[in-house]
C-alpha cells in the first residue's frame, strides 16, 4: 500500500492533477444531475405569506411550526418530508403523504403553513391547481 503511494507520488505530475480534478468534477456533476441527489434539495417552510425556514432534506428530524390555528408538525426523513400532525379539520395536508421531488408542495390552508421542496432548478414559475 505504502509502496503504491510512493510509486504514485513519484509518477504524478502537475498536469495530472488537473485531469484528476476535472474527472472528479465530471463524476460529481453527473451524479448530481442524473441521480437528483438529495444533497441538492431543501425544504422551504412558509408561514402565512413569508418564508419561515429552510431545511436540508438530508436529515432525520421533526419540526413543530406554530400556525394561526395551532401547531403543525412535519417530519423530514432522508430526502422526503410530510405533515405528521396539523390542527386543521380535514387533514388534507397529512393525507398527501410523503413528498420528495423538487417543486412538490403541500399546503395547509387553515393553518396557513405550506412546505415546498426546492432544488437547484425550477422547471416552472407557478402552478395551476
Amino acid at each position, binding site marked *: 500500500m505504502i509502496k*503504491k503511494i510512493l*510509486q*504514485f507520488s513519484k*509518477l*504524478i*505530475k*502537475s*498536469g*495530472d492533477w*488537473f*485531469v*484528476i480534478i476535472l*474527472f*472528479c468534477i*465530471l*463524476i460529481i456533476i*453527473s*451524479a448530481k444531475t*442524473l*441521480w437528483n441527489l438529495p444533497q441538492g434539495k431543501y425544504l422551504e417552510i412558509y408561514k402565512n405569506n413569508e418564508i419561515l425556514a429552510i431545511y436540508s432534506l438530508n436529515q432525520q428530524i421533526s419540526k413543530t411550526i406554530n400556525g394561526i390555528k395551532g401547531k403543525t408538525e412535519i417530519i423530514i426523513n432522508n430526502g422526503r418530508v410530510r405533515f405528521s400532525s396539523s390542527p386543521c379539520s380535514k387533514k388534507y395536508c397529512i393525507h398527501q403523504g410523503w413528498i420528495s421531488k423538487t417543486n412538490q408542495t403541500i399546503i395547509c390552508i387553515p393553518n396557513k403553513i405550506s412546505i415546498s421542496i426546492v432544488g437547484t432548478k425550477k422547471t416552472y414559475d407557478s402552478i395551476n391547481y
Partner: protein
Amino acid sequence: MTLSTINITNRDHQIAKLSAIAVALSLIEFFFPSPIPGVKPGIANIIILYTIFKFDLNMGIWVSLIRVFVTSIILGSFLSPTFFLSLSGSLFSLIFLIAFRNLDRQNFSLISFSLIAALAHIFGQFIIVRIWIIPHNGVFYLLPIFLVSAFIFGLVNALVTNKLLKLNSKK
C-alpha cells in the same frame, strides 16, 4: 508475374506478441465475474498503454484493434453487441489518445493518458448502449458508477503500466 513477398519485420513480431498478451488478459478478465455488470478493470489496457509508451502510438493502435477482434472471435462474440461495445470503447480511447498525443510529457504523466483513455472508453461504450442496446435515457442512471470505476481502474492500470515500463527498461 512478380511474386510479392510480405516482409515480416521485428515490429510485426512485437505487435503480435503484445496483442497475444492483451488477448490473453481479456480472456482471463472475461472469466472473472464482476459484481456489477459492465464494470471491468480492463487489464488488457495495461498492455496497450505499455505499448504506446514503450514504443509508439501507431503500434498501440494495432495492438488495441487486434485485441478487440481476436478476443471476440475466440469468445464467439464477433459482430455481437459485446463486440461493438468493445470496439466502440477502444476506438474512442484511441481517438482521444491521438487527439491528446501532443500533451506535454513534462507536465502530464501516463496517469493522465490512462484516465483520458478510460473516460473515452466509457463514453464510447455508453453511446453504443444508448443508441442500440438500451435505447432510453434510464441508462444514464448508471453513468456515475461507470465513471467512478473508470477513474479508479484508470489510475490502477496506470500504476501497473508504469511498473512494467520500469521493469522492462532495466533489462
